[in-house]
């Protein structure tokens, strides 16, 4: 049993089934990656775990069934999510964006804020600017920072490197690894499958809403079938 588990998830957009019984899971101190072709339901898995998408199946956090809880309740239990698009509050300043991340916290979040600034110095520089005026990469960092502000135990990342320059990608992956080292459970959907799988502890290959392959990142990378079908090699 993993720390965060989604079991036998089913979901549909209207009449179109999008998840057809897939299962994912991640432990604390572990990085799991979900890969698969477009439309396979990668992002939907995340939404189902967060309760943003009505779904059937079990969602367990630390062994407790949270599938009946609202998104907000799940967040308060330590889940944090960084969406791919629309991931900032555009008419609010950077610092306000980060503060919203700490919305559920009642303690002093200044230390966490400093941590975020150390991680992304550009955010400190632009902390008074409106998030809507930042570039795509910078927004990604704001979103990332906002998620960190909740001091989550589980981080769900939806394509964190999309549209980010290669140098930042490496940095982001480094940060993700750092989070993992800090005993957080990290689950991410990644388009950049090669690189993601190479650092992942665990990988889930999704096809048409079902698990096609599951294994450690290394194992999946070296699986010829997986490579041929999904990694474009």
């Amino acid at each position: 049993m993993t720390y965060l588990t989604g079991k036998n998830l089913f979901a549909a957009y209207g009449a179109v089934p999008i998840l057809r019984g897939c299962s994912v899971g991640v432990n604390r101190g572990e990085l799991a990656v979900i890969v698969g072709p477009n439309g396979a339901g990668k992002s939907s898995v995340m939404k189902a775990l967060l309760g943003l998408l009505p779904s059937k199946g079990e969602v367990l956090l630390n062994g407790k069934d949270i599938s009946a809880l609202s998104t907000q309740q799940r967040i308060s239990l330590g889940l944090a999510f960084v969406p791919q698009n629309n991931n900032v509050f555009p008419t609010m300043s950077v610092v306000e964006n980060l503060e919203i991340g700490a919305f559920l916290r009642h303690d002093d979040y200044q230390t966490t804020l400093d941590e975020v600034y150390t991680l992304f110095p550009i955010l400190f520089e632009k902390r008074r600017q409106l998030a809507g005026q930042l570039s795509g990469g910078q927004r990604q960092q704001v979103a990332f920072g906002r998620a960190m502000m909740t001091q989550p135990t589980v981080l769900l990342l939806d394509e964190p490197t999309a549209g980010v320059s290669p140098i930042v990608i490496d940095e982001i992956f480094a940060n993700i690894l750092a989070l993992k080292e800090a005993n957080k459970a990290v689950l991410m959907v990644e388009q950049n499958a090669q690189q993601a799988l190479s650092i992942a502890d665990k990988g889930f290959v999704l096809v048409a809403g079902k698990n096609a392959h599951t294994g450690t990142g290394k194992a999946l990378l070296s699986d010829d079938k997986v490579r041929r079908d999904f990694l474009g090699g």
Partner: protein
Amino acid sequence: MPSFDNILNAFILLSNFVLLPALTYGAQLALGALAVTLVYSILRFANFSQANNMAFGTAMAILLTGFFQSQGWTISGFPTALLVIPLAIVITIICLLLTDRWVYRYYRINNAKSITVVMVSIGVMFIMGGLVQLIMGPEQQIFADGARFIWTAREFKTFSGLSEGLALKTSQLTTILLALLAVGLVFYFLQKTKVGKAMRAFSDNEDLALLSGINPDKVVFTTWLLVATLTTIAGVLFGLDKGFSPLQYHLLLLPVFAAVIVGGIGSPLGAIVGAFVISFSEMLLTYAYKKFFIYLLPTSLEPDSLLQLIGTEYKYAVSFVILIIVLLIKPTGIFKGKVL
């Protein structure tokens, strides 16, 4: 070169007839427009029942005023309506929250299209309008008590020795002060408090707000709280200044909406700027500048005609022409508004 006195006279003349009334009217519109814009940006629909909600809040204030007066709970010289405003606000809050619970909530939960909710608000507009008429009857009601003037035009003339007077009404002063206070508090609330920031976050990006642990029900609740407060204050101030009749309030819908749209729907600052654009343009464009220029120009250049740009018959059309021109040049209003 006109004498200093004449310049002063011209300025006082303009202030008395244009600037001060426009400021007052603009402040009343601004509060209503702010309420519309809050509903739009957070609950995501154009609320057509706003004007009738204002009538409802005012009706409550009038009933309470009557009750207070009958009990002798008044302060001399001070409008009783202002004393009862907190109570009227509470009743309006309850009314709007019930409306939300019984009507709007269903559509929010079901993710209805914004336009459907607009239709729903038109339904609410009919009901609220009918209800207020049913309760209050059709007659105009004056409920302002206390002193009507801080100083009258005549007093001002005697005091200043100028030939033009500048009257200052109690209702004007309370309107401007109270509106300033209310708008200031709302902005402080939105900018500085945690809940206010949560509301702005919700308005910016609903999904992300949920993901930050913001409780949507609380945001909705707070929004209606604010909206009801602004609505009641706007309605009461307007009624103190100009008297109350249900039909008159219903007709406020257009200028309020015009203000919101001109400013940029969904932008709180825009709503306030829009309200003053509307009120000042109505006054400035239809004012007959003859007397004003008589003060400023030498006698030889004294104008014959009234120097009126547009007849007052077209006063209300003016605000719509401005509305349409603004939309053509900046299709989302002066302060870039939202499009849902």
